[in-house]
């Protein structure tokens, strides 16, 4: 039992090994993609730029899915606002990238990004201070989502807001942030957001070399996040989380401060989502307020549901498979995609509550 990958669900003996094999194979294939991209295009193994950039995006989504699984699958906190943490991380790095454009903008202003010049700013607002430093911006990509999750989580958990109430509160949170970031006078680029980035850490962004590096950064982050989550969920803290998920008041009577436990995991999960966003922005080259839309957050929840919550691996399986369907479907039948996505919500909750990975599980319990 200490060999199980998942604490939320238990695997059949042998399934764990199969899963681990699939997982490692998947990660290895991903790691090969930028290398295969360097092959001559006529080679049978050649992988296009599109495939590399799309799978880079999916890796970021997989980290987001891990974050959601940690909170939902283990602690039972169904956040419908994780897209907001993701977007905040993305904006933090986006702000750094905007500062790095320097005088190469359309207006050629040495300090201010184009949209600020356009809106008649004369100096940098205080919210932008420090973002010319990459370490600072990267730290903010983790700290800001963490702080927001800390405040919202503290207020919610302390007054015992759980279940669907918490879901709605987090959805309202991302909705409010979306409205706010759409405003020009917030100083974050209004509805256009940030784009036209030039360089990161002295490296020009639109080269295949830069793409490969960012891809590997994301892949390493995914591996690290997976190890971190696996360690956490296999520790006693992981068992406390499962206990909180199933019978929170009983855990309180055992003497655990469940507010602190939930807050810890919620903040950690938000920071992971922020990390995913921070990797996402330079990879796709744009971040805008649409990322805050409640639909994005709930779509990410469905990745986890499809893959199988409370398993960690399921989050990855779900993120990659649902996004693969999405990319494939939207290319030739975009009208169908929303039906399929909606259908996935219905089908998974009704017929496959434990997701794809759940199919490998012992048949006991509920």
């Amino acid at each position: 039992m200490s060999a199980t990958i998942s604490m939320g669900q238990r695997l059949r003996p042998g399934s764990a090994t199969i899963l681990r094999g699939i997982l490692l194979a998947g990660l290895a294939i991903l790691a090969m993609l930028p290398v295969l991209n360097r092959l001559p295009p006529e080679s049978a193994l050649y992988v296009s730029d599109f495939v590399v950039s799309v799978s880079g995006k999916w890796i970021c989504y997989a980290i987001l899915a891990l974050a959601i699984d940690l909170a939902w699958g283990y602690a039972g906190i169904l956040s419908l606002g994780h897209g907001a943490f993701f977007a905040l991380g993305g904006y933090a790095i986006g702000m750094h990238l905007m500062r790095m454009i320097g005088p190469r903008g359309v207006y050629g202003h040495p300090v201010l990004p184009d949209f600020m010049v356009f809106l008649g700013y004369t100096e940098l607002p205080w919210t932008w201070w420090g973002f010319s430093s990459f370490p600072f911006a990267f730290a903010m990509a983790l700290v800001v989502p963490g702080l927001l999750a800390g405040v919202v989580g503290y207020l919610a958990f302390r007054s015992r807001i759980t279940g669907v109430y918490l879901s709605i509160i987090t959805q309202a949170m991302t909705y409010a942030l979306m409205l706010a970031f759409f405003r020009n006078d917030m100083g974050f680029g209004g509805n256009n957001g940030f784009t036209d980035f030039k360089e990161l850490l002295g490296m020009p962004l639109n080269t295949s070399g830069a793409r490969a590096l960012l891809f590997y950064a994301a892949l390493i982050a995914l591996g690290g996040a997976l190890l971190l989550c696996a360690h956490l969920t296999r520790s006693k803290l992981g068992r406390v989380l499962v206990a909180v998920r199933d019978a929170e008041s009983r855990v309180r009577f055992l003497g655990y401060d469940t507010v602190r436990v939930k807050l810890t995991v919620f903040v950690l999960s938000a920071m992971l989502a922020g990390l995913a966003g921070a990797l996402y922005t330079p990879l796709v080259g744009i971040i805008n307020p649409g990322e805050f839309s409640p639909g994005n957050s709930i779509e990410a929840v469905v990745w986890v549901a499809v893959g199988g919550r409370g398993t960690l691996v399921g989050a990855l399986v779900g993120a990659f498979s649902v996004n693969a369907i999405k990319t494939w479907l939207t290319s030739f039948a975009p009208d169908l995609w929303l039906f399929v996505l909606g259908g996935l919500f219905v089908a998974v909750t009704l017929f496959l509550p434990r997701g794809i990975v759940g199919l490998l599980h012992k048949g006991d319990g509920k």
Partner: protein
Amino acid sequence: MLRSLLVLLLLLAAPARAQDAFTDALRGLGGNFQSQAEAVEKLGALGDPRALPLLQALAEGRLVKTADGTVQLREGDAGEPVRINNRVRVALRGALGRLQLLSPVEAERAAAADGLFRSRSPENIPLLEDALGRESSPAVRERMALALAASRLAAPQEGVKRQGILVLAEGGSAVARGLLLEARAAHPALAPEIDAAIAAIDRRLMLKTAAETAFQGLSLGSVLLLAALGLAVTFGVMGVINMAHGEMVMLGAYTTVMVQEALRGIPALAPLSLPLSVPAAFLVTAAVGVALERGLIRHLYGRPLETLLMTFGVGMIIQQAVRLIFGAQNREVLSPAWMQGTLSLPGGIEITQNRLWIILFALAVLGITIAAIRFTRFGLEMRAVVQNRRIAATMGIRTGRVDAMTFAFGSGIAGMAGVAVSQIDNVSPNLGTGYIIDSFMVVVFGGVGSLAGTMIGAFTLGIVNKMLEPWAGAVLAKIAVLVGIMLFIQRRPKGLFALKGRAAEP
């Protein structure tokens, strides 16, 4: 001397001679400028409505001389138009103003009063005083009084000016305030009076703004109430979280569009399309609600998070289906005539009719909902199932049927909300998304399971939102309300009207 004699004669034989006086005066229009001006003044003083088109034609150069020396309206390009000079024009303006002031058409009298207000000439004072004396419509009286006050303010005599200031202070519109500010600069001697008048106007304007904000808040609140009521039934009573609730509102709005289009060709029914949409929308969304509850939701009872996700997916499918069938662009729903226009209340408060109707409609729907739950067999069974499902079942209540009915009822209310929303918002496939979060906030704020709480919650949020808007802007006001609710549930986690202990009546 001769003229006064003539007037005396006219007065003595008024009924018989009036006709002749009008014809006499007309003749003058064909004379030189001097006699033209006199004739115009005379016609104005006579107040005969037949003079109005003639004088208007004269002003616009559409009047020609006839062979016998009188005048007539020009037909085509025939004849030479009667020429006028500035003196005649001045006379014309006064005469036209007077005639219009006495016109039988209310809108024309109002327009004339506005015209005189703009010209602000002390010469119009007697004219306006006279017209004010005869006027019966309060709206026109108000405008005339304003014009009179403005004219008085322009008079050379201080006493008359003061009178004008007093009237303006009472009228209390923003226009009057501007007029007073202008006068204050021109006549420093009157400063104390004018300042007092401005202060009085400011007070009235503030009251007016407060009243209008309250109305807008009530109006927004009533829309929130309609959207949240159905949710209060399905979520508050059944504990089922339906994320497709917004789509039910949207379907209600599209039903309104369909009913309107279906009835367009039937003149007898077309004006009734909106009232007919209410039952239609109720039935359509209630049917969708039953299908959703029996087909899907019922399998997920006791698993609220799964229900949330599943119904969100259903909402997506409904939205996309409507988008494919009806197109992504906005559809328009026409308001019937009796809902259009504005209602003017004393103090210059203006209320749009359709919003007033929506408030009344929301209260009516609330009343029906409460009555249905309190006084009908269905309501009794519903309350029984909520309190204790198993005991209700042992007493012969078919709980599955009650669940379906309750869900249909909640969905049907959402559909009726859609009819109301179609009057004030664009009807588009994603209409519902905007309402779902707000509705949940209302239900959580008011207290889950309490319809009174839902009502008070909806109106409070509506009014607070509108109060914050002027200084925070619509978006920040919305955010402030969300944050406010977060903090509020810190103090009262169960909302305004929490159900305590073992009492659990809806």
